[in-house]
Structure formats: structure tokens, C-alpha cells
């Protein structure tokens, strides 16, 4: 009796493992940077002679969104970012990754600009330091300059409402207390 069921049990265990495997997203590689100080960089701002470095936002919780005009899923999340910028007072820094100023500008004109500041990483050097491998990526940095969360791939309405906004609220209350 027991023997007959053995293959069935093995099969069931296998199905269970495969089912768990199917629900995981292989693109979601845990970032080793979470809980660490945000990597520094100094990059030119788009349409401005000034440069930007994360140090300038010390003491503020902010969002770093990495995007490019050649990235099609950036278009998907862009609407959501525009909405977010309208409804929330967050500092959203847009890092234009491996792109040209002309392309970036026409893209922002066409789809509107939700960013507090846009910086250019034409060589992708800062991207390497931040462990960027799939644009769009979004980082949340707290008031002490520590990376608290990373979204790989396009933001969704759900991930913004359930993760991003609550996290930003806790980070901002940290500074008031």
C-alpha cells in the first residue's frame, strides 16, 4: 500500500517545488546595497551647468528613479511617477541612464517631467556603483543617506501604494521625531 503511493508523493513534492519556483521572479535579485550608505557620485544635471551629488540631499528622504528614453517599460511606470509627483511632495531624482541629453529632453517633453532634478549618467558609471542591471529601477534613500528599498523593474500602482508611499511616510516621520 505504502509502496504504491511513493511515486505519487515524490511527484507531489516535485510539483510543490516547481510551483514555488514559478511564483518567484528571477529578475528580482536581492540588492546587497539595502541597509548600506548610498554610493556617492557627482554627475551633471540635465539642462544645467550645476552638478548633483546625493550628499546635497542629506537629511531628506528621497527617491532615485533610474530611467532611459530607450527603455520601453520606463514609459509604463512614468505615468505613475507623474501622478505621484502631483499628489505627494517627495523629492524624486531621475537618473537618466546611458542616454543622450537630446533624447532625454524630448522624452520628458512628451511624457511630462515628474522629477525634482534629472541627472545624466551617460557612461553608466554611477549605474554600476548602484548595481543597476535592469532599467527602470527605483531606490528609496532615508534621511541618513542609507538605501532602504529597491524596486527592480517598473513600479506599479500597487507597489507605489503598498510599499513606496508607506515607506516614505515612515522615513519622513523619522526625521520629525
Amino acid at each position, binding site marked *: 500500500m505504502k509502496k504504491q503511493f511513493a511515486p505519487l508523493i515524490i511527484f507531489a513534492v516535485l510539483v510543490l517545488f516547481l510551483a514555488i519556483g514559478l511564483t518567484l521572479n528571477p529578475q528580482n*535579485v536581492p540588492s*546587497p546595497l539595502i541597509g548600506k550608505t548610498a554610493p556617492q557620485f557627482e554627475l551633471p544635471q540635465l539642462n544645467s551647468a550645476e552638478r548633483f551629488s546625493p550628499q546635497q540631499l542629506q537629511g531628506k528622504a528621497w527617491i532615485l528613479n533610474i530611467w532611459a528614453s530607450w527603455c520601453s517599460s520606463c514609459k509604463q511606470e512614468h505615468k505613475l511617477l507623474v501622478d505621484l509627483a502631483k499628489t505627494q511632495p517627495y523629492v524624486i531624482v531621475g537618473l537618466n541612464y546611458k542616454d543622450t541629453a537630446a533624447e532625454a529632453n524630448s522624452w520628458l517633453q512628451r511624457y511630462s517631467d515628474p522629477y525634482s532634478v534629472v541627472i545624466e549618467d551617460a557612461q*553608466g558609471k554611477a549605474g554600476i556603483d548602484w548595481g543597476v*542591471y535592469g532599467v527602470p529601477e527605483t531606490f528609496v534613500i532615508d534621511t541618513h543617506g542609507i538605501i532602504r528599498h529597491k524596486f527592480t523593474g517598473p513600479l506599479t500602482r500597487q507597489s507605489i501604494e503598498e510599499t513606496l508611499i508607506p515607506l516614505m511616510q515612515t522615513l519622513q516621520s523619522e526625521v520629525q521625531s
Partner: protein
Amino acid sequence: MKRFLILLYMLLFSLPLFAAIEEHRFKTPQQERDYRQLIDELRCLVCQNQNLADSNAELAQDLRRQVYSMLVDQQADKQQVVDYMVQRYGDFVLYRPPLKTQTTLLWAGPFLFLAIGVWFLIRLIRRQNSMDDADDNS
């Protein structure tokens, strides 16, 4: 002969021939060895099942350049390059994952399965032997 010529033409115009070739100059043969080994063992995170050597993704090109400049310009050793990559991309960037508590199953798993297999094999052989004995007795 004709077949041979066709084959020759096909080989001459096969796609890999047209693949982009990056030229790198190394100061020492050691550097070149390290470079080859590193791009062989580091994963391209965009295309996940390819290493840096095989992948033509933009990120893979950038990371190859980074590996090269660390080895040649900054005189870094292999471990420094590996640490640099792991700091940014995590252990996932390594095709040869380090032995840690999280990866014990990964490393011990094959031996575990081997042990289970051997156990079943021994049981099977024993049972067959005892069946043969039973046959002999009858």
C-alpha cells in the same frame, strides 16, 4: 568535394564570425588569464544565464570594460574585482557561489542525492540477491 566546399562556405559565413570583437591589450599574461577567468565566472545580470564573456548586452560590455580597467589600470587582483562586483550585485553575480549557511543545501545537495541514490541501489541489489537465494532454494 562539393559538399566540403559548401560546408567551408557555411563555416566562413557563420554568424559568430561577425560578432563584435573587443580588443584588449594586457601588460602581463597573468592579467590576461585573470581577465578571461573573471569574465567567465561573472554572470551578466541582464541575461542571467550567460556569463560576461558570452553576453553582448550593454551591461556586460560595461562590466567587461570595468573588469579590464580594474585589472590593467588599477592593478587590482582577481579577488578585488570579485569583491567589487559582489558589493554591487550580490552573490548572484558569481557563477561559483560561496559556501555560506544560505548555500549549504546548494553545495551539499548533490552529495545528498548521491547518498540517497546509493542507498536505493544497495537496497535493490540486496533484494535481488535475496530473491536469487530464494530461487536457488526452491
